């Protein structure tokens, strides 16, 4: 059994946040339909030569059906309105104002379906001067204060990461909000509108720094990997090119384990390192000693040696490490799916276990318009002739008539 069986989700998403949220709903058993159009592609379909064979798109859009429709036509809009009427949760993250210009803003959608839960996820959120700004993960960390403290203290300026954090934290928040609204609707019969700001998700992840400002009038500066309550606490270069092991020592017991793992060399017995205060005060010298030890060893040897002594240590890992990770193999965390355009490829599974359900029975991402005909037939109850006619008239898009126009949303 799946937790969200019979829940119907309609997704007007693009990029990372809403597609990932829709994927999570799909893995939890909801029927998720992605509204797509060949003339206005999800930009993730446009970052490579084949719209159906893009890793990021095919990850973010698993466990969904694709309904290809021309939203510039009244007929196309009419079909989407019919789908809205049977929808429990509508997700959207178009640039602010786009849903309104399409005629699918909350005010109009609720007239079609008063019980609908409508989650609008804008970069900066609605109701302010920046509500129509297009959102990208790297913008959100920049505009939220997060990037301003995301660097080593001696970096010239912060560059954060090329991973679009916090996009995939925002997607989880969108799911949580929709599930809470679903629970409220179950109890009261009432739908509602949820306006989520992705910048505010970033802020909530670093709330303590905002309290440091509102309580202490201090504007946080980057501290890199240093901690005020652990030392050593950082990544230490190991043998080889760009190989690192992260080490975190909090308690004196862990420090004893750390020293033992190194074979209790003389420097570890110096009084200045014997407690946390001393280790924090002399942290540069401490780090020098540790680097001298790690630089001669394979990062995995460092991790195993320290873990065997009860010290938190982990290799700074890359994708191939994830595939080889014994714990993830034990859980079966990585799954393989056969996609008709991309072939057999690996994807992350659902990272939690439920005793009463088996989420994660994932299906591969749809080709553009892969389920258009099926949805017309089974849900919209249209005749075969009518479906064929609308395909010919370019109202409906199917894989057969969706050779990319190369026009992409941003291309």
């Amino acid at each position, binding site marked *: *059994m799946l*937790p969200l069986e019979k829940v119907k989700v309609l997704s007007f998403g693009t990029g990372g946040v809403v597609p990932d949220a829709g994927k999570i709903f799909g893995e939890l058993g909801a029927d998720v339909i992605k509204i797509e159009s060949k003339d206005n592609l999800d930009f993730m379909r446009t970052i490579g030569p084949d719209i159906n064979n893009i890793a990021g798109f095919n990850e973010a859009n698993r466990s969904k059906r694709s309904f290809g429709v021309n939203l510039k036509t009244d007929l196309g809009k009419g079909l989407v309105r019919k789908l809205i009427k049977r929808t429990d949760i509508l997700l959207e993250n178009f640039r602010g104002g786009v849903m309104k210009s399409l005629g699918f803003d909350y005010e109009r959608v609720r007239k079609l379906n008063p019980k609908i839960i409508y989650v609008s996820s804008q970069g900066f959120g609605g109701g*302010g001067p920046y509500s129509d*700004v297009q959102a*990208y993960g790297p*913008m959100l960390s*920049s505009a939220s204060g997060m990037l301003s403290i*995301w*660097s*080593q203290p001696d970096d010239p300026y*912060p*560059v*954060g*990461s*090329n*991973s679009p*954090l916090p996009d*995939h934290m*925002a997607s*989880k*928040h969108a*799911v949580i*909000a929709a599930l809470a609204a679903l629970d409220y609707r179950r109890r009261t019969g009432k*739908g*509602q509108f*949820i306006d989520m700001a*992705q910048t505010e998700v970033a*802020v909530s*992840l670093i*709330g303590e720094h905002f*309290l440091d*400002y*509102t309580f202490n009038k201090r504007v*946080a500066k980057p501290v890199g*990997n240093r901690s005020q*309550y652990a030392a050593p*606490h950082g*990544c230490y270069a190991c043998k080889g090119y760009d190989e690192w092991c*992260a080490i*975190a020592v909090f308690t004196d017991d862990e420090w004893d384990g750390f020293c033992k793992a190194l074979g209790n060399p003389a420097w570890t017995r110096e009084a200045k390192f014997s407690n946390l205060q001393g280790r924090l005060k002399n942290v540069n010298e401490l780090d020098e000693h540790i680097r001298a030890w790690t630089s001669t060893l394979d990062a995995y040897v460092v991790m195993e040696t320290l*873990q065997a002594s009860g010290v938190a240590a*982990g290799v700074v*890992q890359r994708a191939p*490490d*994830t595939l080889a990770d014994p*714990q*993830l193999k*034990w859980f079966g*965390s990585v799954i393989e799916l056969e996609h008709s355009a*991309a072939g057999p*490829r690996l*994807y*992350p599974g659902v*990272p*939690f276990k*439920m005793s*009463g*359900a088996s989420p994660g029975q994932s299906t591969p991402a749809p080709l553009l318009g892969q389920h258009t005909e099926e949805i017309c037939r089974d849900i919209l109850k249209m005749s075969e002739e009518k479906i064929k006619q609308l395909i010919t008239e370019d109202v409906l898009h199917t894989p057969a008539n969706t050779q990319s126009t190369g026009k992409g949303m*941003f*291309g």
Partner: protein
Amino acid sequence: MPPFVDDIPHPEKSLYFLHRNAGKRGITLNIETTDGKSILKRLVKKADVLIDNSPPDYMANLGLDYPVLKKLNHKLIMASITEFGHSGPYKNRKGSNLVDFAMSGVMITSGYPGKEPCLCPGTPAYDAASLHANIAIMSALYMRSTTGEGQYIDVSVHETARLGLYPWIVPNYSYALNPGGPPPTTETRMGASIYPVYPCKDGLIRVIALTPRQWDALVRVLDSPEVLQMPDWRSFMYRIGNADDLYALMLEFTQKYTMIELFEAGKREGVPIAPILNIEDFYNSPHTKAREYFVEVDHPLVGKADYPGPPYKWSETPAAIVRPSPCLGEHNEEIYCKELGYSKKELVALRSARIV
């Protein structure tokens, strides 16, 4: 855990604690005592959800594992969060936010090329676990409305950070892996070249120009300097390959404008340009004010201050911080006496026996 209000180390003044425990009530209970266990069982009988983050086997060794608790309340949903999970070869390993972030695959992409990979601010690995636990719990609650039964949820920081913080890492690699082809390059620290950060008149901006159209818009934002109109620059891969040269060229133009001028011109022309706001800038931003994002909370010990609110606005059920984070044991009397029916005398006895 620091930082503290007024920099005074005190168990009620940790800012991390105040932020993450707002909205809760708090009681103390020593569940390692016989009486403590039976009190917990009484609480479990009335609970919808029990969340714990004790080490593997801890609850089971106390006789408080899910099968036992479910007998008392078959509707109970129990979510247990551990560093590496309740089974498997890493079950007894030590984790931490830093270590789990290192193993997430995101850290190797964070910071400057060649330098020490950099931790993302906050506790991203722990937040990955709490967000996934939240999704699992809400799903189990939804399921319970039809089945009438609770269930057990097992969440590990390691797995959620690895698969959830940036789920595209494994697919990106897998799609680049082709039989007979060269081994794919793995992700590394490319933030500075893919999403470059430039100085401007009054601070820094970050530019997200990936497509040719976005690049053209960026050139227009900078008043179309001739040197940027060379056709090669329109190619993303060319820009990545010549990132240092491009950076040197761009400096001359970006510094003519303010953060907000570039942000707004980017919006107008169609290229995402973000101002790099610091904590104070975000707090004072007109958009933040318009959304009334920060909410004042009054805490009995540390007083009034603005807190970050929930990151969403709801039309029917406005979410809010309804109470400050609890002081240690603040609601003992309210919960033990008013809700479980212990007399004040009994509470005193429980307190002196160090059970609460």
